[in-house]
């Protein structure tokens, strides 16, 4: 199974055999995005068109297979940036027509969960993904909390961000602090020598009044503004901004909310399993706090290898392979890009 992913700024092509990972090649337009300080959809879409065929060729070479060896194709149909998704869908449909292979449109967010199914040579002893599980997916485009009872038939969205995605907040705060894009690694680096308790930044949607409607939702826009105010006030007083302390305190506010809500979901639903996914999993402090809190709560924590946490085609192929194994028919040939595809629709 070959999977194509173009929902944001990474062009990913992956090849899997059942649950064995054969290739995972990713081309990123991050360098082009850097000068804009964030992902510009049109820049991303243009980069996908340029990168797609080379990425596809590289994936086939890495897997050591030819198109004739493939049984089926999968492509992300949503959620994501519509113009970016359509490049992948156009290519996948062309490939399907040329090869006669069945094509499956796959949900990007469920793909992040599916990434954990994949076995690589180095992690043969990671054990199996057990269901049901809570899944926390955190990236530059998404911040979502899922309850996964069945990968193909029963995925429930418990909550998601109501404004900025967590990764986006990292980018914006980095810019505020004069740090380059992408912000995640920069904040991580600056925070290393800072005191996470130096400044008590707000934890969005954690007040008692939010418990009914927004228990599992996230909000990072207010946090970003609070950091901006703090930095401005310090500068107004003529003080030098203690970047390490601001970075560490901001990061702590983000990962505190993320992990607290994820473990709250585990407790409320009586599910002692938590899976992390998405590019922000690269954040060291997020992994660390998730590990501590999961251990304290008796929750088993699973984190796929980092190359499978960021957006990639292998995770899309993994879900495609599950769909084939379950005997599902290919997607309607007229499926399109759905920028808001709900997690309840695993297949387009």
């Amino acid at each position, binding site marked *: 199974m070959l999977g194509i992913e173009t929902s944001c700024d990474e062009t990913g092509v992956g090849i899997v055999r059942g649950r064995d990972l054969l290739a995972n090649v990713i081309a990123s337009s991050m360098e082009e995005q850097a000068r804009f300080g964030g992902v510009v959809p049109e820049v991303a879409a243009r980069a996908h068109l340029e990168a797609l065929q080379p990425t596809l060729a590289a994936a086939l070479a890495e897997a050591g297979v030819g198109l004739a060896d493939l049984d089926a194709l999968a492509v992300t149909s949503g959620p994501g940036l519509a113009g970016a998704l359509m490049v992948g869908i*156009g290519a996948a449909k062309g490939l399907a027509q040329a090869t006669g292979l069945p094509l499956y449109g796959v949900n990007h967010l469920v793909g992040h969960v599916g990434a954990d199914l994949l076995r690589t040579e180095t992690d043969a002893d990671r054990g199996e993904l057990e269901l049901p599980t809570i899944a926390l997916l955190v990236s530059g485009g998404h911040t979502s909390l899922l309850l996964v009872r069945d990968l193909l038939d029963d995925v429930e969205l418990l909550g998601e961000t109501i404004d900025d995605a967590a990764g986006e907040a990292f980018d914006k705060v980095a810019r505020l602090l004069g740090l380059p894009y992408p912000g995640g690694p920069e904040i991580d680096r600056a925070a290393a020598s800072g005191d996470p308790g130096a400044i008590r930044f707000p934890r969005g949607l954690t007040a008692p009044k939010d418990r009914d409607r927004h228990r599992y939702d996230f909000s990072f826009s207010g946090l970003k*503004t609070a950091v901006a105010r703090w930095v401005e006030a310090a500068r107004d007083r003529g003080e030098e901004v203690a970047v390490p302390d601001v970075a560490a305190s901001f990061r702590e506010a983000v990962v505190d909310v993320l992990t607290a809500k994820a473990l709250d979901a585990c407790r409320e639903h009586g599910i002692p399993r938590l899976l992390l996914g998405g590019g922000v999993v690269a954040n060291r402090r997020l992994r660390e706090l998730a590990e501590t809190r999961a251990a304290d709560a008796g929750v088993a924590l699973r984190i796929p290898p980092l190359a499978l946490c960021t957006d990639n085609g292998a995770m899309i192929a993994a879900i495609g392979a599950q769909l084939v194994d379950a005997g599902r028919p290919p997607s309607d040939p*007229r499926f399109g890009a759905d920028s808001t595809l709900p997690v309840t629709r695993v297949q387009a």
Partner: protein
Amino acid sequence: MLLALDTSAGTSAAVVRDGRVLARAEEAGTRSHAEVVGVLIADALAGADVSPRDLDGVAVGMGPGPFTGLRVGIAAARAVAGALGIPVLPVVSPDALALGRAEPTLVVTDARRRESAWTLYDTPDAEGLPVRRAGPAHAPSDAVEEAAAALASGIRFTRLDASLIPADALGLLAERLLALGRPLGPAEPLYLRAPDASPPGAPKRVSA
């Protein structure tokens, strides 16, 4: 035998061979390229009663046209050609409409944002192939003819507004260009407009 594809306006697919159109399939919608591109390729191949393995190349319209749709056809054409190990034959999309027109012609298609894409053609050359005098370029939709006339050196032209670039004509043109050893279109899309984004300035102040 060529598969031809254009998504610079509506979506059109065709199969041509030796100057003959074997099949053509199309949908006029300008916002459904990703949905229909696969089906139309399949319809064109089925209509011509050929298998993808019979193809010698894939002609594709490189625009200009609304970017999102334009990319769908190019991505699909490259994938088909890549999978079959045959060349992509890029063509300037409006050239397909100018093919076979004896008089100077202004081809106009939508470019969104109240702009149109225009290309002005002279009378055809000795081989009967389109000769671009000016464009392709963008102009405000209500001032396209003025923009073209400014570069027309006084020649009179007929305006042709199109909501679909017919892939059969595109494929026939690609065949002729190949046969005559003429240059094809550009390898990359004719965007004619930079991405709508600028590098950020200093962060905006949020406190009073």
